[in-house]
């Protein structure tokens, strides 16, 4: 990641620079002109297919758990339990959970650092995630890495590296193996709005398209790349426009709408499994917190506007409201789900804190794979 410990400096950003918060509205107008280019727009008003009640509750729990785990990790950081730094994806819960929930057990997930929800949807035990953050031997990397550089091999989740963009070609390769072996399985990966500028993303997407690999790529456009705004990141009207450039279908959606993401991503994965090649999904959310635990968000973002967004579009709240508005579950059940999520998160933290640190003698182990 970019400099994690850098203090912000410079003049505060003015409201005029925050036109991206109206990104949504602008795009809706622009939609009319990009319609012909095979990029489909789905608004928040368009009804999404609602799954059965149990599935909805499961997704609700996962979304809530994602929020709870990240808040718990945040407070753990402030209590000194996390060596190094931590990144969180507040605002990205619905998008991550909903997309990854469409993956089958045997399919690979290649997440980035704000896709905690994807880990959970794929079945990564919370205690494992936390042990990793706390640098314990029981973590998936045995303390060799930290932060959200966490994978989980039993559930086919890869561990990312700091160099942004790297994972897209890696994901393409994973999908490629499925294609060669004819398994009919797909793979799912993510990249940020800033990350999408990296050269590897171009190479990976091009390769996926030209080789018709069974890969779904989600651009988590949370409108901030550390301290860089979208207007400094790319000049095209929308990142989804790159999809026709590569020869793959592209979708631009409201990423705070869990069920909409579930539909679009689910369809994309089905197409991939059927051998129809990759899909690009641009998911608009907001980065509701700083870049990392060290980042002073208020130094460069208008907190007033941000809070307004969160009022209107916080994904956890939105899903609560949706379920209640459509009378799928009761308020009590929602409350129970949130409570359970919080308790599970705290229990996972307590258990993780009991796990020992790796022994110093183990530092030279496993540099090489055995025969």
């Amino acid at each position, binding site marked *: 990641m970019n400099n994690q410990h850098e203090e912000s400096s410079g003049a505060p950003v003015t409201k005029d620079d925050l036109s991206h918060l109206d990104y949504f509205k602008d795009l809706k107008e622009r939609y009319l002109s990009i319609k012909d280019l095979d990029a489909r727009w789905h608004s928040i008003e368009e009804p999404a297919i609602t799954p059965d009640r149990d599935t909805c509750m499961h997704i609700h729990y996962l979304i809530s758990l994602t929020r709870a785990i990240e808040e718990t990790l945040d407070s753990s950081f402030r209590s000194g339990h996390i060596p190094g730094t931590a990144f969180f994806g507040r605002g990205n819960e619905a998008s991550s959970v909903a997309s990854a929930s469409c993956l089958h057990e045997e399919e690979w997930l290649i997440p980035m650092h704000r896709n905690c929800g994807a880990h959970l949807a794929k079945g990564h035990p919370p205690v494992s995630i936390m042990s990793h953050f706390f640098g314990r031997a029981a973590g998936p990397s045995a303390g060799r890495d930290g932060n959200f550089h966490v994978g989980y091999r039993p559930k086919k989740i890869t*561990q990312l590296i700091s160099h942004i963009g790297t994972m897209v070609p890696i994901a393409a*390769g994973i999908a490629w193996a499925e294609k060669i*072996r004819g398994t009919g399985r797909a793979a799912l990966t993510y990249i940020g709005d800033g990350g999408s500028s990296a050269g590897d993303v171009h190479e*990976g997407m091009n390769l996926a398209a030209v080789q018709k690999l069974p890969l779904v790529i989600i651009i988590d456009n949370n409108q901030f790349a550390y301290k860089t705004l979208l207007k400094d990141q790319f000049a095209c009207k929308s990142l989804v426009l790159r999809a026709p450039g590569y020869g793959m279908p592209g979708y631009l959606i409201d990423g705070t709408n869990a069920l909409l993401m579930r539909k679009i991503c689910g369809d994309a994965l089905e197409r991939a499994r059927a051998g129809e090649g990759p899909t690009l999904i641009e998911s608009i959310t907001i980065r509701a917190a700083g870049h990392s635990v060290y980042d002073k968000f208020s130094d460069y973002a208008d907190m007033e506007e941000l809070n307004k967004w969160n009022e209107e579009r916080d994904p956890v709240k939105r899903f609560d409201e949706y379920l209640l508005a459509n009378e799928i579950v009761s308020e009590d059940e929602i409350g129970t789900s949130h409570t359970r999520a919080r308790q599970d998160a705290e229990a996972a933290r307590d258990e993780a804190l009991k796990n020992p640190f790796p022994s110093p003698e183990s530092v030279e182990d496993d540099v090489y794979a055995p*025969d």
Partner: protein
Amino acid sequence: MSHLTYREAISAAIWEEMERDESVFLLGEDIGLGGGAFYITKGFQERFGRERVVDMPLSEAGFTGAAIGAALNGMRPIVEFQFADFVTESFKMIVDFAGGNHYRQMGPVPIVLRLPSASLTSAGPFHSQNPEPWFFSTPGLKIAAPTTAYDAKGMMKTAIRDNNPVLYLEYKKFYSYPLGDLPEVLRPDIPDEDYTVPFGKARVLRKGGDISLITFGTTVLEALEAADILDSEGVQVEVIDMRTIFPFDKNAILNTTRKTGKLLILHEARKRGGVAGEFASIVAEEAFEFLDAPIRRVGAIDTPVPMSPPLEKVYLPGTERVVDALRELAAY
């Protein structure tokens, strides 16, 4: 038993492994339809199909990453770089991802990166380089440097079967080198049956008691030529081919130092930061008491690789520079 050229040996090894193991597949630029810039994979696509011999777009970082991803998911890809010089496009994928993945407990990365390396008359700055100094200090990688057809075949199989990322340096100069022009020690017979050459085991090309000459890669030719000249002057030079750069045969280096007390380390890569520095330091640390003279290194001069023949001749460590160094050592 047969005699194959270096190129034929590499081709044969890959072919045999592809027949043996379905998870082996090839990716690289121009390798399928065109059989590769150096024709190593000529005929492969016809035999193994477009699924297993895949022409890549011009994106080394992208397809190296894809190879790594495929390796994470159970395949054993072999990536062909058209020239070793282009490996820098994939530096991050190799060093930051592949090198550390197993250490970070995220599983083995069984990939082979084929790198046509070293000079080839007047090929210029971007088609002549020796990449091993850039990767030598990255843990998790292995670097193979075969010089004979026998080693090339055996070590390619070892590389493919190894569960770690292997940079397999192919010395372009040797691809079509006429067997008749090679000294006999560099063209051993090739068995018909399956065989491998292990990593980390050096080979003594010539025995001698006065000076030890450690080398690898193209400079085995200069080493043997210089040893012959010194022989006629009454100085016996022991020539050792390291064969793999990492893991390297440390004991071979230490044993020969103990035997002669005078050491010259030679490689085509530039002297500064070259692997010779590591070998020399190890000797200084572990066999200091056996040294009768300062350790000498000979490598290319510290400039980019020039194109024009008179410049390239000065750049490369030719036989005369080796002979000069050997004579100085002998007289010390």
